[in-house]
C-alpha cells in the first residue's frame, strides 16, 4: 500500500505570505519577541546570580587574603634571613652524601623496601580475612541465639558453628599478627641502614621549620584553581574558602518583644583579623585591623573573649548583618560620614534600634553588663562620665534605674539650715550664676539661658530667683552660730589645708575650669573653696571644719580630727579668700506684676480663674513670694539635689534615663535644630546646650513650657564622657551570668566601688590604679597616702575593720602629715570596705591562727633580718626608731605586723614587692631569674668570712652545712623565715609549741599593745 502523498506545500511561491491564514498572529514576529524575551530572561537570571553572589564581605575577605599573603611573603623573607645558608647547603650535601653512600655500598636497602611492600599487601589480605571471620562469628552467634529461643532442632549444630568460627577468627588474627611482626622487623632494619640520611634530614627540617610553616600558611592562602572553583558563583555551595564567619552567643539576647533570640555576631566576616594579633601596624586599615585592646576584649585569654561576648554586645549594631550599612555603622563626625557616603554608599538605618556606636563611644557598651559598677576598670572615658553623672546629680532629677545609680547621695548640700550658714544676698547671686562664683562648681545655671528671650521673661527669671530665696529662708532653721571665733593664723591654715588632706577633695583656685581639673577629678568631690569668706559665716565655718556632721548628719565630709587651734587656723585661711561683689548684696525686689501673674498661673492649676484671683488677694506680699518660691522649686526640681524642707515625697522632675540609649528617635524632639538625626547627636547637643531645642520657639511657647534642663557648662570632653554613659543605658538584655555585680565577688566589688566613689577614697589613695589626686599638693611620693593595691591580701580583716572605724587608734606612718579622716562609717559600710578589698585579692575574710615558727626558720630569720638590714627602714622597736630618726624614708613599724598583716601574705611580699605594689620603695632582695623563678643571694653570701659568726649561730639548728645551704637557697623558705622573725619581734611569733598564744594574736586582739609600741617607736621624733 502506497502512502498517501502529502499535500505539496506551495513551494516556490515568489513572496511567501507574512502571515499564514490559519494563524492569528504573525509568527515570524512572535519568534523574534520570544527570542528577545528569552535572552532578557537569561540576562536577568545572570544578573540575579551575580547580585546574590557579589557581596561586599567577599571582597573584603579576598582582599584580606591577598594582604595576608603579602605579609607572609615579607615574613618569609625574615625567616629566610634567619637561616644560615651555608649550614643548609652543608646539610643538604650531607643528605646527598648519605644517599649515595647507601646506594653504593648497600644494595640490600632496595630489596628490603620491596619486601616491606610485599608484606604490606599480605597484611592487607590477612586483615580482610580477619574482618570476614569476625563478621561470620557475629552472624553465627545471632543464629545460635535465635535457634535457642525457638528451641529449634539444629540449635546444637549452630552452637558448634559458633565454636568453629571462634577458632577461625583466632587463626586469622594470628596470621595477621605474624605478618605485622615481620614487617616491623624489616622496617627497623631499613631505618638502621638509612639512619645517616634521616638524621641529616631532621637537622635540615629543624633549621627550616620557621620558614616552612610560614610557607605552608602562605600556600594555603594561594589563589589556585581550587580556590577559584570553590568560590565561583553557583559553585560556592560546596565549601567556599570565602564564607560568613559567625559566633553564636547564647547568653546575649535580642529582645524581639514576644520572644528573645540569641545573638549571632557576624562581624568577623569582614573584620577578619579582629581576634588575631599582629594586624595593628599603620599599614593595616579597617576592616582588617586587630582589636586595639586584645588583652581586655575579643582575645581568647581576655576577660571578654569574643566567643562569649561577641562584638555587638558592646558596640551595638545588627549582629546578623553582613553589609556595611545594614550592620548599623555610625559615623563619628561629618567628615567620616562624607567619606562613607562616597566610598561605602553608607545609609543610615532608620529602623535599627541600637546602631553601632561611633568610635570613641564604644565604652558605652560596658554599661549593659557593668550596670552595677560605679566605674569599669580600663574604661577611662566612662569612668570620668560616671564621676560627672554622680557629681552633677543627673540621677537626682532623672531616674536611672541601674544598680550603680541606686541610693546615691544627693549631690547638693543640705539647705534646711541655710540661714545659719550664709545670707540671702549671696544666695540670690549664686543661684543666678553659680559658675561666676565657683568656676568649677557642678551646680548648673538654671536662669538666664538661651531660651529666655525678651525683657519680660528676664524679669520673670529674677522674680523666680527672689522667690526661691524667700522660700529657703522662710523654711530654714535659724539657730545662730557664735559670732566670734578664736583668732587663727591664715598662713598656718594654708599649710594645714595642703597637708592634712583637705586637698584630696577640694581645690581653692580661681580661673580654672572643671576640664582642667579633670585629670585629678577627685579634687572636685567637694566644692571649690575660693571666695569662701564672702559666702559663709565665720562661726558656721569654724564649727563645720571641726565636725561637719553637727550641721548635716548625712554629709560625706569626714572629720580630720582638727584640734581647736588647727580649726581656727584653717578657718582663718579659708575666710581670707573673699570677693566684694558678693558681699552686702540685697536680692532685687520682685516685680509685683509679673510675680502675681506667675502666682496666679500656679493657683489656676487647682482653682477657677475667679477663685484664684480671690485667693491671691488674700495673700500678703511675703506669702506670695514664698508661695512662688515653693512652686519654682517644684518647677526646677531643686529638691532633687538638695534637702529642702517640704519636699519629702515629691518625685524628681526629669525624664527617666534608664533606657535612654534605646529611646526611639521619634520621642526625641529635634525642634528646628539641624543636627544629624541620631540619638547620640541629640543627647550630645542637649548636654552642651540644654535649651537648644527651644530654638525658634522662644516666643511660641508659654513661659512655663520653655525647656527647664539647666546648663552645666560642660566642655566637649565632659559631654563626651557623660554621653558615653547615657547612650549605654539601653534595654539590651543579657543573661545574669554575663553581668558584673551579681555573683558574690563582683557584687562585693561593685558595692565597694560605690562606697569608694561616694567617700572619694581615691582623692588620697591609689585604688585600682586610679587616685592619688592629692599629689597636686604633695609632690614627694614618700609622703603620699598609701597605695591600696594589695590591701585585701595584705591586712587582716579585723584590723582593717577597726581601722576604718577609727583611724586615730593607730598611727602607722607617723611621718605622714596627711591624716586618714574619720568618716563615721556604720558597721555595714566598714564591712563593705573589707569585703571589697578581700574580693579584689580573692581572699577569705579570716585566717586560722598563725601556726607558729619552726626553730630552724627562726634562726635563719634572725640572721637574714640583719643581713638585709630590715630594721633600717622598718623601726622594729623603740631603739631602732631612735637610731634612724623620723624621716620620710621610713616604712611602717614591724611591731604592728602580727596584728595588722596576714601571715600568709608576708613571705610573698618580701619575695617580690613590686609585683604587689608597683612603685613601692620596699627593695627587692631576690632577683627574678625567669618569670616566677627567684634566686636567693643569701646562700652564696653566707660563705663569706664576714658572716662566719652568723653561720655558726644558724648551724646550731641544722644537722649539716648542706642542709643549711639548701634552706638558704630556697627563696620561699628564706622569706618565710623573715616573716617568722618579724612575728617574733612584734610579739606574735610564737614558736610552734604554743598554740594558745597564737590563737590570741591571730584576730588582732592586741591592737592596743601594738599601738602602744608604735607610740613608743614614734617617740623618737
Amino acid at each position, binding site marked *: 500500500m502506497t502512502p498517501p502523498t502529502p499535500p505539496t506545500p506551495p513551494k516556490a511561491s515568489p513572496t511567501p505570505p507574512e502571515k499564514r491564514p490559519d494563524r*492569528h*498572529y504573525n509568527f515570524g514576529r512572535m519568534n523574534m519577541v520570544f527570542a528577545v524575551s*528569552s535572552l532578557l530572561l537569561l540576562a536577568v537570571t545572570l*544578573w540575579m546570580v551575580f547580585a546574590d553572589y557579589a557581596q561586599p564581605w567577599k571582597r573584603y575577605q579576598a582582599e584580606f587574603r591577598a594582604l595576608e599573603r603579602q605579609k607572609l611573603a615579607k615574613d618569609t623573607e625574615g625567616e629566610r634571613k634567619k637561616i644560615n645558608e651555608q649550614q643548609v647547603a652543608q646539610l643538604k650535601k650531607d643528605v646527598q652524601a648519605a644517599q649515595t653512600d647507601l646506594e653504593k655500598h648497600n644494595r640490600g636497602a632496595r630489596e628490603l623496601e620491596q619486601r616491606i611492600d610485599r608484606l604490606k599487601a599480605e597484611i592487607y589480605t590477612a586483615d580482610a580475612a580477619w574482618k570476614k571471620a569476625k563478621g561470620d562469628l557475629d552472624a553465627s552467634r545471632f543464629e545460635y541465639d535465635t535457634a535457642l529461643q525457638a528451641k529449634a532442632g539444629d540449635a546444637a549444630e549452630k552452637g558448634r558453628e559458633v565454636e568453629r568460627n571462634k577458632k577461625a577468627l583466632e587463626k586469622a588474627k594470628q596470621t595477621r599478627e605474624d605478618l605485622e611482626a615481620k614487617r616491623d622487623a624489616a622496617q627497623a632494619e631499613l631505618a638502621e641502614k638509612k639512619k645517616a640520611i634521616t638524621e641529616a634530614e631532621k637537622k635540615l627540617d629543624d633549621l627550616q621549620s620557621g620558614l616552612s610553616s610560614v610557607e605552608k600558611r602562605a600556600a594555603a592562602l594561594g589563589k589556585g584553581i581550587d580556590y577559584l572553583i570553590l568560590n565561583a558563583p553557583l559553585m560556592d555551595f560546596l565549601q567556599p574558602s570565602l564564607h560568613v564567619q559567625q559566633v553564636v552567643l547564647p547568653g546575649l539576647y535580642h529582645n524581639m518583644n514576644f520572644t528573645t533570640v540569641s545573638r549571632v555576631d557576624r562581624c568577623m566576616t569582614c573584620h577578619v583579623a579582629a581576634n588575631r594579633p599582629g594586624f595593628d601596624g599603620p599599614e593595616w586599615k579597617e576592616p582588617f585591623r586587630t582589636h586595639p585592646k586584645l588583652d581586655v576584649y575579643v582575645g581568647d585569654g581576655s576577660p571578654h573573649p569574643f566567643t562569649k561576648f561577641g562584638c555587638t554586645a558592646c558596640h551595638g549594631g545588627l549582629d546578623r548583618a553582613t553589609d556595611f550599612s545594614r550592620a548599623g555603622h555610625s559615623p563619628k563626625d561629618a567628615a567620616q560620614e562624607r567619606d562613607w557616603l562616597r566610598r561605602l554608599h553608607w545609609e543610615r538605618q532608620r529602623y535599627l534600634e541600637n546602631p553601632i556606636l561611633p568610635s570613641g563611644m564604644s565604652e558605652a557598651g560596658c554599661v549593659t553588663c557593668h550596670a552595677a559598677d560605679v566605674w569599669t576598670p580600663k574604661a577611662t572615658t566612662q569612668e570620668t562620665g560616671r564621676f560627672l553623672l554622680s557629681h552633677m546629680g543627673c540621677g537626682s532629677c532623672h531616674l536611672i534605674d541601674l544598680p550603680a545609680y541606686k541610693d546615691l547621695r544627693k549631690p547638693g548640700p543640705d539647705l534646711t539650715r541655710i540661714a545659719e550658714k550664709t545670707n540671702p544676698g549671696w544666695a540670690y547671686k549664686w543661684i543666678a550664676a553659680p559658675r561666676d562664683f565657683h568656676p568649677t562648681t557642678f551646680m548648673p545655671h538654671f536662669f538666664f539661658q538661651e531660651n529666655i528671650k525678651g525683657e519680660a521673661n528676664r524679669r520673670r527669671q529674677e522674680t523666680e530667683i527672689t522667690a526661691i530665696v524667700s522660700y529657703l529662708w522662710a523654711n530654714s532653721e535659724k539657730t545662730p552660730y557664735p559670732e566670734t571665733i578664736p583668732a587663727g593664723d591664715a598662713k598656718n591654715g594654708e599649710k594645714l589645708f595642703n597637708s592634712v588632706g583637705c586637698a584630696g577633695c577640694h581645690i581653692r583656685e580661681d580661673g580654672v575650669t572643671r576640664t582642667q581639673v579633670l585629670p585629678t577629678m577627685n579634687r572636685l568631690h567637694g566644692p571649690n573653696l575660693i571666695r569662701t569668706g564672702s559666702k559663709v559665716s565665720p562661726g558656721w565655718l569654724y564649727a563645720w571644719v571641726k565636725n561637719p556632721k553637727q550641721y548635716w548628719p548625712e554629709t560625706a565630709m569626714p572629720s580630720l580630727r582638727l584640734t581647736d587651734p588647727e580649726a581656727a587656723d584653717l578657718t582663718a585661711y579659708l575666710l581670707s579668700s573673699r570677693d566684694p561683689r558678693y558681699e552686702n548684696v540685697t536680692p532685687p525686689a520682685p516685680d509685683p506684676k509679673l510675680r502675681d501673674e506667675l502666682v496666679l498661673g500656679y493657683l489656676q492649676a487647682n482653682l477657677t480663674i475667679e477663685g484664684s484671683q480671690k485667693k491671691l488677694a488674700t495673700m500678703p506680699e511675703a506669702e506670695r513670694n514664698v508661695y512662688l518660691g515653693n512652686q519654682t522649686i517644684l518647677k526646677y526640681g531643686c529638691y532633687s539635689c538638695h534637702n529642702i524642707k517640704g519636699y519629702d515625697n515629691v518625685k524628681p522632675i526629669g525624664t527617666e534615663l534608664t533606657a535612654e540609649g534605646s529611646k526611639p528617635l521619634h520621642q526625641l524632639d529635634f525642634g528646628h535644630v539641624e543636627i544629624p538625626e541620631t540619638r547620640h547627636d541629640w543627647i550630645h547637643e542637649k548636654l552642651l546646650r540644654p535649651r537648644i531645642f527651644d530654638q525658634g520657639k522662644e516666643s511660641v511657647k508659654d513661659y512655663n513650657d520653655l525647656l527647664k534642663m539647666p546648663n552645666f557648662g560642660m566642655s566637649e570632653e565632659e559631654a563626651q564622657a557623660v554621653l558615653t554613659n547615657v547612650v549605654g543605658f539601653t534595654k539590651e538584655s543579657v543573661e545574669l551570668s554575663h553581668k558584673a555585680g551579681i555573683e558574690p565577688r563582683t557584687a562585693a566589688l561593685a558595692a565597694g566601688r560605690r562606697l569608694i566613689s561616694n567617700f572619694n577614697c581615691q582623692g588620697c589613695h591609689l585604688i585600682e590604679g586610679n587616685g592619688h589626686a592629692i599629689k597636686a599638693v604633695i609632690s614627694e611620693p614618700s609622703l603620699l597616702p598609701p597605695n591600696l593595691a594589695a590591701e585585701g591580701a595584705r591586712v587582716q580583716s579585723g584590723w582593717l575593720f577597726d581601722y576604718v572605724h577609727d583611724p586615730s587608734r593607730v598611727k602607722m606612718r607617723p611621718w605622714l602629715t596627711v591624716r586618714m579622716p574619720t568618716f563615721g562609717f556604720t558597721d555595714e559600710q566598714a564591712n563593705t570596705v573589707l569585703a571589697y578589698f578581700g574580693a579584689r585579692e580573692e581572699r577569705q575574710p579570716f585566717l586560722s591562727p598563725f601556726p607558729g615558727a619552726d626553730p630552724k626558720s627562726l634562726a635563719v630569720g634572725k640572721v637574714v633580718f640583719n643581713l638585709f638590714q630590715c630594721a633600717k627602714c622598718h623601726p622594729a622597736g623603740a631603739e631602732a626608731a631612735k637610731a634612724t630618726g623620723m624621716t620620710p624614708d621610713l616604712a611602717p613599724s614591724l611591731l604592728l605586723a602580727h596584728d595588722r598583716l596576714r601571715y600568709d601574705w608576708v613571705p610573698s611580699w618580701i619575695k617580690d614587692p613590686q609585683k604587689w605594689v608597683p612603685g613601692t620603695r620596699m627593695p627587692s632582695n631576690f632577683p627574678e631569674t625567669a618569670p616566677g623563678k627567684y634566686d636567693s643571694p643569701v646562700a652564696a653570701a653566707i660563705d663569706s668570712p664576714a658572716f662566719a659568726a652568723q653561720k655558726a649561730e644558724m648551724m646550731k639548728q641544722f644537722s649539716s652545712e648542706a642542709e643549711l645551704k639548701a634552706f638558704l637557697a630556697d627563696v620561699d623558705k628564706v622569706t618565710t623565715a623573715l616573716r617568722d622573725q618579724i612575728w617574733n619581734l612584734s610579739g606574735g611569733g610564737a614558736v610552734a609549741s604554743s598554740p594558745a598564744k597564737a590563737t590570741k594574736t591571730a584576730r588582732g586582739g592586741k591592737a592596743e599593745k601594738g599601738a602602744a609600741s608604735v607610740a613608743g617607736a614614734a617617740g623618737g621624733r
Partner: protein
Amino acid sequence: MDFIKRIVNTLSYPYWSFSLVLVAFYLMMRSKRLWTKKGGLILLAVGTVFFILSLFDPNFRSIVAKPDNVPIVMMVFLVGFFVWLSMYKATKNDELLARGEPTFEKTEVEDKIFTWPDLVFSEFIFMVVLTVVLVVWSIVLKAPLEDPANPALAPNPSKAPWYFLGLQEMLVYFDPWMAGVVLPGLIILGLMAIPYIDTSPKGNGYFTFRERKVEITIFLFGWLILWSQMIVIGTFLRGPNWNFFGPYEYWDITKVESLVNVDLSEYFWIKLLHVGLPGNWFVRELPGILLIGFYFFVLPVLLARWKRLRPYYEKMGAPRFYVGIILFLVMLLLPIKMYLRWTVHLKYFIHVQEYFFNI
C-alpha cells in the same frame, strides 16, 4: 512653583478634593471625547506629566518612592487604564449598536483561533516577560524591612495593608464597628446581591454604556470615588498621627490639628433648644434615631413614589427596589457623613456611649 504646590496642597485636602473629584466624575460620565484613544492619551499624558514633575519635590518623592508604595503608584495608573479601556469599548459599541452593526465582542467570537500555537505561545511569552519583570523588581527594590513588631511601640502612622486603607480612611468618619464591620460587610453583601437586584440582560457579554448608564455610574462612583480614591488618600496623603498632608507637604510628626467634633444631640438640645442634654440616652439620641430612621425607612418609600424613580420601582418590584435603594443609601451615608464632618464638625448622628453604639 511653590505657589502652585501650595495650591495643589490646599486643593488636595479632602473637603476640596472630594468636591472636585465629584465634579470631575460628573463631567467624566457626561463626556464622550474622553473615551477615545486621543482622550485616553491625553489623560495618560496629563497624569504622567503631573507625576514626573511632582517627583522633583522631595516630600512627594519620599512618599511615592517608598518601596511599599511603588506598586500602589503603578496600580493608580492601572485603574485609570482599565476604566478607560472599558469605557472606550463601551462607547465604541454604543456607536456600533446605534448604527445597527454587531459589537466588538460578537465579531471576536466569530473569529476563532487555535490554542496551539496562537494562545499557548503568546501566553508563554507573557510568562517569560513577567518573570523578567519580577526578577528585576526584586533585585532593584529591596524589601522594606522595619523594626521587629513591638506592641508597645506602634509605627506612626500605623497603616493597614494598602487594600484596607480605604476602610481605614473610613475610620476617620465612623465608629470602628461601622467602618470596620458593618460597612465592609454590606459592601460584600451588596456586591453579592447585584445580580439579584439588577436582572437586566443588557450588557451581557459586551461592553455598553448607553444601555446601562445608571448602573455603571453608581458602580463607578462606589469603586472610583469611595474605594480607590480613599485608598490613594490613605496611602499617600495620611501621615503621622493620621493627619492629612498635601502631596508636597513634609510629614511633620509634630503637626497638630484642632479636632473638636460635636454630636447631633448636642446640636439639637444645646445649640438649638438651649437646654442641657437629657439624662436618658434614648431621649438624648432621639433626634439622631429619628433622622437615621427617616433616612433608612421613610426615605426609600418616598423615593419609590418619586416620578423619576417610579419606573424603576415598577420594573423591579418592591423587594428588589427597596433592597437596592437601602444599599445605595448606605453607600451614600459615607459622603454625607464626610461633608457633615468637614462643614459642621459632626461627630455622630447617634452617640450611645452607654452601649458603644455610634453612627
